[in-house]
């Protein structure tokens, strides 16, 4: 585990040697009179999974949606692969907390919807959708409707849809919070495999400390409103071990404990 303190964060936020996929520079966000985010400077290394963690209402989802181009920042700038973000773009794909599946469309159509919006032909997009449906483990469910699936399966559809558009950066907004505990664990393990396989940059928002430590290459902890960077932690856990071994690993448990100690004073 490597702990980068808040003071040194700006310097150390730029990982030496690694490519930077997303740069966040001086982002502030005001909702009328309420200051949601203050002066966020952050780099997201390419090909890594970075987690935004913090107490509820700290603005982590707001930050993610600013990166997605879904909400404008009050001031500051976000650059993805060197280009300034002005709105949503094809190099970023979003996975929603409540899945955001179209209830009137089959799994196949939902997964291929990003490609459909790009104007890709039906056969081509179905072939791609088919590949990612298989990758997230939903083969055989192509013609089912979302209400026929469990919560975990629905989010797999949301994930497959994000993979299908072949974006460089995947933005996941508390993707497992509406999934029950057993499915969540399995899903986290599958996600790690997909991170390994797909070589994409992941930005992951969660309020679960265990989930953050288990999945992340780097954890950015935000303070309570107005959201600022409180801590950056790199768990440095050996992921070659089995999932169960990781969950019993002393380094894993220590990291969880340390983050909890840091966050404890935010809890009423």
């Amino acid at each position: 585990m490597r702990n980068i303190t808040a003071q040194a964060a700006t310097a150390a936020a730029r990982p030496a040697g690694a490519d930077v996929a997303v740069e966040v520079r001086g982002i502030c966000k005001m909702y009328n009179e309420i200051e949601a985010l203050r002066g966020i400077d952050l780099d997201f290394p390419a090909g890594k999974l970075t987690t935004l963690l913090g107490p509820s209402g700290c603005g982590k989802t707001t930050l993610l949606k600013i990166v997605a181009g879904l909400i404008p920042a009050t001031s500051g700038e976000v650059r993805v692969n060197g280009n300034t973000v002005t709105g949503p773009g094809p190099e970023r794909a979003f996975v929603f907390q409540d899945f955001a599946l179209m209830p009137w469309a089959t799994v196949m159509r939902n997964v291929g919807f990003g490609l459909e919006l790009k104007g890709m032909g039906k056969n081509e997009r179905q072939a791609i959708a088919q590949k990612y449906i298989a990758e997230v483990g939903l083969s055989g469910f192509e013609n089912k409707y979302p209400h026929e699936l469990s919560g975990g399966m629905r989010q797999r559809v949301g994930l497959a849809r994000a993979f299908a558009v072949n974006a460089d950066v995947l933005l996941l907004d508390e993707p497992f919070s509406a999934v029950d505990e057993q499915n969540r664990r399995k899903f986290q393990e599958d996600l790690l495999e997909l991170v390994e396989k797909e070589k994409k940059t992941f930005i992951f928002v969660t309020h679960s400390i265990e989930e953050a430590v288990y999945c992340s290459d780097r954890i950015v902890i935000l303070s309570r409103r107005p959201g600022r960077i409180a801590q950056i932690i790199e768990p440095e856990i050996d992921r070659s071990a089995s999932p169960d071994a990781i969950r019993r690993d002393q380094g894993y448990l220590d990291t969880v404990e340390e983050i909890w100690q840091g966050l404890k004073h935010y809890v009423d």
Partner: protein
Amino acid sequence: MTMFGYRVPMMASLLVWCVIWEIVGRSGAMFLIPPLSDVLVAVVALVQTGTWQAAAITTLNSFLLGMFFAIVVGVILGVLMGRSTTADSLLGIWVNIFVSAPLSALVPVLMILFGMGETTVVVTVFLFAVWIIVLDTRAGIQGVPKSLVEMGRSYGASRFTLYGKIIFLAALPEILAGIRLGVVRGVKGVVIGQLLVAIIGYGELFELYSRNFDMVNFWALTIILFAAAMGLSALIENIEKRVDYYAGVR
């Protein structure tokens, strides 16, 4: 409904009322109520007459035209009000006034504006049906999950596709419910419009029979109208159920 331990279908109660009607009619207690069997015979005879057929076509014509405009205008206004707070606060008060106002009182004014013909009836149908369609569409649009709109935007949907492929479809169950209620009100509108204009279509026939105390034909006319209104409503409800099935997880 269960009776003496047996499950009795809903339509059975209708049968009971039919029997009561027949008995009251046969007793001759009230000349206003002729026996149901006579009325049913009259229904069969009536639909074969040229007068009825001409009246039905005129009426259907006015109704469909009025409903067409009510649906188009209602859905557009509803979408506008659901998406824009400015449009909502500008139009909201009027829609709410008209949806509960006794519109029959307006028909004489409409006659001055649009003359004693079909136009007045079409406008009456429109005014009866449109407001509830506006309100239900607005509610449907407002109920579209925010994340579904964000999903469309983040995957690059243009404004037009966003409405066509996501917002409209997501609000479809409520829009259809509005149209169903609008159809029922539209049937009221067409009859009231024609009655007050009193020289065309179904209204003319109603006027003719009730003035001559021809109760058999009067009731026959009423039964046909009720059946038509219920049939239409059931048809839309059927489509609604199918759409609701797919929208089941919202």
